């Protein structure tokens, strides 16, 4: 028998999440994706639901510092996780360098994919600076170079149906070189 304060049955779980610096607790059905937990249970609507099948990247957040598509993972599997959404990248009213670069380079049109793009770009640069190779890295023995092709490949999990890719590329380059 469960503890009175525990989840009501094995199909539910009580979890705690650190979301953009705030400690949040909630009870979820085990089927609840992390995206639905954020949006529908906690009211954190920065990550967007585009395809809900991991193909568009609009639900991307930084999950314990690494980019992840929140529609393809169960909230129950992330008890205790630290989540940074596009909202949490900013420091109050001061935008993160990547957000500022998207504004300055006009890296969006409708903006629906933008929170995912920005989170993905921040996580992508961390991977790049940690010298992770990508599918287009030719020399796996040398540190990769941040070519346009490298940025495009590393951001290929984030689709923009408006087609703002040219300016997204410019924004990421600006943030990377800042």
């Amino acid at each position, binding site marked *: 028998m469960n503890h009175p304060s525990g989840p009501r049955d094995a199909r539910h779980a009580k979890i705690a999440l650190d979301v953009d610096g705030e400690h949040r607790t909630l009870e979820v059905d085990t089927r609840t994706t992390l995206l639905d937990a954020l949006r529908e249970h906690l009211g954190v609507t920065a990550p967007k639901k585009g395809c809900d099948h991991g193909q568009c990247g609009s639900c991307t957040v930084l999950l314990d510092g690494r980019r992840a*598509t929140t529609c393809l993972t*169960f909230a129950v599997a992330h008890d205790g996780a630290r989540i940074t959404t596009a909202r949490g990248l900013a420091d109050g009213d001061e935008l993160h360098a990547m957000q500022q670069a998207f504004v300055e380079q006009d890296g969006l049109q409708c903006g629906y994919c933008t929170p995912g793009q920005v989170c993905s770009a921040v996580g992508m640069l961390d991977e790049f600076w940690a010298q992770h190779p990508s599918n287009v890295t030719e020399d796996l023995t040398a540190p990769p170079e941040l070519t346009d092709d490298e940025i495009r490949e590393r951001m290929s999990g984030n689709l923009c149906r408006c087609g703002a890719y040219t300016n997204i590329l410019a924004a990421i380059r600006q943030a990377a070189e800042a």
Partner: protein
Amino acid sequence: MIPFDYERATDVDGAVATVTADPDARFLAGGTNLVDHMKLGVAQPGRTRPLRVSDAVEGTAVRRVGSAP
């Protein structure tokens, strides 16, 4: 998606034991294929166990409600 029980293993042996003991059990791992297939009803596992062997070994399982214990 069918309801499932979720179990978190604390080590690799425990994760393997849970999955081998139940033909409906699955390793969840990153989940990016299995979760999508579960949404579509293609996969209907009784259990799903994300078995991540990285810095800390951690695993998880789900079991279909009503399946044999």
